[in-house]
Structure formats: C-alpha cells, structure tokens
C-alpha cells in the first residue's frame, strides 16, 4: 500500500519572523498546508482540529521548550504518533542525540535554505521506516 502523502504540517515556533519565512517556504513555495503555533499550549489546543501529518518543532521557546512540547503532544491522541522533526539552532551533538532519543524523525539546523526546506521534509517523510 502506498504511503499517505504529506499534506498538513503543524509548525511550532515562537519567533514571528521565522514563522513567516518557514510558512512561506512550506506553504507558498512548498505547497503544504501549514498551521502556525507560537507555543506548546497553542499547539496542544490546535492539534485536535488541524490533525497534522507532521510536526515541525522549534526547541528554544519561552515557557515550555521544544522537548516539553513534544512530550505534551505525545500525550494527546491527535498527535500521539505523528512524526516530529526538530527545526532548531541548538544542534550540539549531545542535543541532537537527545532529540533522537525522544523519537524525533530528523533534525534540521537553523539557518536553513527555505527554498530547499520542502524538498528536505519530503525526503525525510519518504525515508521514514
């Protein structure tokens, strides 16, 4: 059976400028349906209705950081099994190791090339086990 296509991406990112760039890169440029949340609380509240295929998660956020957000999203049925990709400037080896231990699908370091972001995420989606 063919894998379901990747359509809806939930972006959890507190920086409004990066929200703009990322949503343009994935939406207008990449052709995905993107829902932007500025915090973990917003993401948890929106996940049930938006039903994302994939979650793109920043790490450094005030209040609950990306790791806590991942744990919170795993705790609700709508996102319990949704693949997560971290999009972060925190890419020291021990940090990347921690993301992998938490079950993230991949880590995309900031700064990234927005014109290549959609293709990168598609490749990650296709290569998942």
């Amino acid at each position, binding site marked *: 059976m063919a894998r379901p296509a990747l359509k809806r991406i939930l972006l959890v990112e507190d920086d409004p400028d990066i929200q703009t*760039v990322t949503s343009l890169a994935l939406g207008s440029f990449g052709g995905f349906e993107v829902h932007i949340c500025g915090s973990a609380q917003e993401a948890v509240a929106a996940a049930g209705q938006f039903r994302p295929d994939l979650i793109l998660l920043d790490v450094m956020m005030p209040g609950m950081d990306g790791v806590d957000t991942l744990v919170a999203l795993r705790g609700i049925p709508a996102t319990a099994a949704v693949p997560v990709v971290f999009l972060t400037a925190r890419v020291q080896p021990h940090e990347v190791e921690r993301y992998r231990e938490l079950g993230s699908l991949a880590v995309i370091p900031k700064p990234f090339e927005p014109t290549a972001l959609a293709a990168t995420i598609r490749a990650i989606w296709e290569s998942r086990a």
Partner: protein
Amino acid sequence: MTTLAVAALAEEYAAALQEYSASGSEAALARAYRLGRHALSDGVGVLEMAALHQIASARLGGGAPAPGRAGEFLSEALAPFELTRRGLLEITAHLEDANNGLQRRLAEALQAFETAQDELVERRRIEELKNEFICIISHEVRTPLTSIHGALNLLSSGLGGELNEQGRQLLEVAYRNSQRLVRLVTDILDLQKIESGSMTFNMRPIEVKPFLTQAIEATQGFARKFGARLALAAVPRRAFVRADSDRLMQVMDNLLSNAAKFSPPDGPVTVAVTRNGGCLRVSVKDEGPGIPEDFRGRIFERFAQANAAAARAGAGLGLSIAKAIVEQHGGRLGFQTATGSGTTFFFDMPEWDPRRGAPKEAGPWPAQP
C-alpha cells in the same frame, strides 16, 4: 693489661704525682705522663685512665691542684674524638642547612604547584565561559540569521515577484553576504566542536568514485560563478575509505570551492584519486596563481588569509577545519604549489577493505573514531 697490672699502674701513677706534689720534681711529673701514655698504648681505656688520674689527684689531699701536665696524655688520647666531635658538629650544621634548604625548596615547589593548579582551574573556567559564550552567540545569531537568510533566499527564488536589474543586484549582494555569515557561524561552531573534542563522526565505508561525483555535482553551481570547470579524472575501481560522509563532503566542498575561487576563467579544476601503498590520495588541482610563498607556512592557521581578495572570499577557517576533519579520520591534508602554475591540495586516507571490514594494509594510521 690485667687487673693486677692496672692496680700496680694506679699505685705507681699516684706515687709519681705524690712525689711531684711534694718536691715539684719535673722528672716525677714526666714519669706520670709516660705511665699514662704507656697504659693507653697497652690497651687501658681512656675513661679508665681518666678515672685513675682523678683518684690519684684526689689522693694528693690538701686541696692541691692536680698537675695538669700529668694528664696531658688524656687530652692527646681524646684529641681524635674531639676532632670527630667537631666534624660531627660541622656535618650536623651542614645537614641542618641542607634540610632548611630542602624545606624551603619544598615550600616553593608546593607554592608553584598551587599556583599552577589555580591557573589550570582559571583556564578551565575561561574555557567553559568561552564554550558557553559560543553556544549563546550561536543561538542568538542563528535565530535572526535564519529570518534574514531565509527571507533573502525566498526573494531570490522570485517568490516576491520580479525585481528590476538594480533590485536584483542589491538582493544578490545581500543574499551572498548572508550566506557568508551562515558559513562563518557554522565554521565557528565546528571549530568549537573540534577544540572541545565533541565533534562526532558517523563512520561508514564509502566508495570513492560515486562520492566524488556527488561532491563535484554539489559544487558545480558555485564553480560556474567563477568560470571554473570541475572534472573527475580516472578513479581506481572499487576504492573505499571509511569515513563520515557529511564531514568528508565538507572537506571536498572546501577544497573544490577554494580551487574554483582561485582558478583563472575557464580554468580546469581536476579531481583525481591514486593508490599509494595502503593509502588513497584524493587530489584537487587548479591552474590558479599558486599560493604566495610567505603564506604557505600559515595556510592552515585559523583566520589565515593570503590577501584582501582572499579575505573577501571567506573567513579563513575552512582549511583549518578540513585539516582537523581529515586528521580525525586518520589521514593527512597537504598541498603542492608553484607560483604561476597552480596548486594541488590532497588528502591521504587509509584505503578500506569493505569485505574484511578493516584497512587494506596495516599502517601507521592514527586510530579512527
């Protein structure tokens, strides 16, 4: 000398003293002296003779002082002991001096050790501060840089609509420099990882030919801007190395980009692979102006720049990082250059035998991670 003989001697000695005391006879005194000397020669102990002398003197009575000269044989007998005693005193004094000196030196050494320990603690503190600073800067710079670089990247793709010629030029300047800034931040982080030993390597067998083809394809667009033509010369069949593919690609990107930057327009940049013993040598040859002689010795130093034109091309960290990465793979990065006719950068790495899962030949390779 028997007890009887000693007793007789004591009597004779006392008598001689008695005679001297009564008459002042020098001959009696000399006799007492000789008796003492002979007794000592015959084996009577010095202490025993001293006691006999005391007893004989006491017997003189009337408080008359014992004639000092009679007992001179005792002083003579004791002279070596006196010398020994003085020698011992001198040695003791020397030992005390030496001991004091040693104690002083020990105190100084302890002081120096404590100072060195304090300096080490201080250096570690500074190192931790530096790492923390780099981490903070890394995040604080990368976050706004993500927006700037991202926005320029999308604008360059035409997402915001068509720009006029001047607009395109200005956008290109801004985008090119944001790329430089991204590279600089990434390089500084890489250096920090290398220095702190936290750079990790995902080592796998890599077949060299497809890997180099991919490296050339990845850099072709960049090289075209400088009019350089990248090409792959013959590569030995089934040649493998064991490496972290991303990190080795970073090395190739650096060598190919440098060669392209310094190539004359339409100049060839040739990548070649040769087998040498248990080693594979990957070389990147350009036909540029060659490396200035006074720069060759410091080309692998951080922030090293040959001249202002080179400084505009990069921060001067790439080669230093490439060298560290190659060395982490148990290899060696070097170059050959001639003014006016070009430069060849190369790296040697142990050739890997994928069937045995080991280097093809045992060699003096440093351990791989």
